């Protein structure tokens, strides 16, 4: 019995200790000129969809949930955002060449089509980020159109 008590204490303590480890915040006030929405100027509908469902992990500005104040959730989110931005950062869209844009658009289209994005682990809490069938189609059509302009 004693051993369980020690383990419980250990767990509690480690939980307390990791709260003191800081994480990097992904937040920015300014929207650069190279931003996807600034450059392509899509309809308000599309802009809203992108901002609600994509920008938290794919831009320089994340709207953090309350549990980002708690470790290890904050670490998990930090990794997520870092990885998301390395794959695609909408804020830096216009820094890409036409070839790279076409590649990214292809991935965007295919991942939304196959329900791989937004990530299920993200929509679990961000219910508003889930695309309805209609919204999915609107985004895919818009991205396909953009891609055709580049090809």
């Amino acid at each position, binding site marked *: 019995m004693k051993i369980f008590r*020690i383990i419980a*204490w*250990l767990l509690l*303590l*480690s939980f307390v*200790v*990791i709260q003191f*480890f800081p994480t990097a915040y992904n937040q920015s006030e300014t929207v650069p000129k190279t931003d996807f929405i600034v450059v392509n100027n899509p309809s308000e509908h599309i802009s809203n969809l992108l901002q609600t469902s994509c920008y938290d992990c794919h831009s320089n500005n994340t709207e953090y949930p309350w549990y980002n104040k708690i470790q290890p959730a904050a670490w998990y989110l930090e990794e997520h955002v870092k990885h998301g931005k390395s794959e695609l950062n909408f804020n830096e869209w216009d820094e890409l*060449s036409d*070839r*790279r844009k*076409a*590649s990214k658009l*292809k991935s965007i289209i*295919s991942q939304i089509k196959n329900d791989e994005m937004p990530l299920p682990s993200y929509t679990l809490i961000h219910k508003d980020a889930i695309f309805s069938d209609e919204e999915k189609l609107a985004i895919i059509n818009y991205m396909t159109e953009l891609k055709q302009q580049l090809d």
Partner: protein
Amino acid sequence: MKQLKLKTTVMALALVSLTAMSCKDNKKEHMDGDTHSEMSHDGDVEQGKMESSNDMASNDGQMANSKQIMADYMAVKSALVETDQAKAAQAGNKMVGSLKSFDMSGYSAEQQTELKDIIADATEHAEHIGESEMEHQREHFKTLSKDMMDMVAITGTDATLYQQFCPMYDGGGAWLSMEKDIKNPYFGSKMMTCGKVEKEIKSTM
């Protein structure tokens, strides 16, 4: 008893913070490791450059490199023809290495800009082939093939290549092959001979 508790508490605290620290250290070490390997890569490139400058033909160094990239691409293609995910992933990762050490110093500034763009794009697709499921590997292979065609248009090729095309895959998918016969990398055994030769790219050497 109380004192014992306190002792365990303190010790646990120390242990936990130590573990946390060592985790961080590990991460750092890992990152250091990465830079080392990158540096040794650079070293390789340097060596390659020196060798090529010793050679009479000025283009030898890069041709060996674009040749290596093409060889890796063919390995990816063959694995996809066989519908072998693990083999394709391995070949994809190998290709990432060749792409990263591609020496383009012998090309004109304009060509270099274009090549850099192609290589950056191809690297991303090769990376994804290295870590994805079969279907994704094929998706990325389609764009990777386009990149390879554009690269060959600049670098040339030492072996005759066949640009082949299957209209059935995702609105049509092209690829490069060393053989005239069709072996479809997008469908494998499901539709092995779907496609036709679109273009013959003659050896430039």
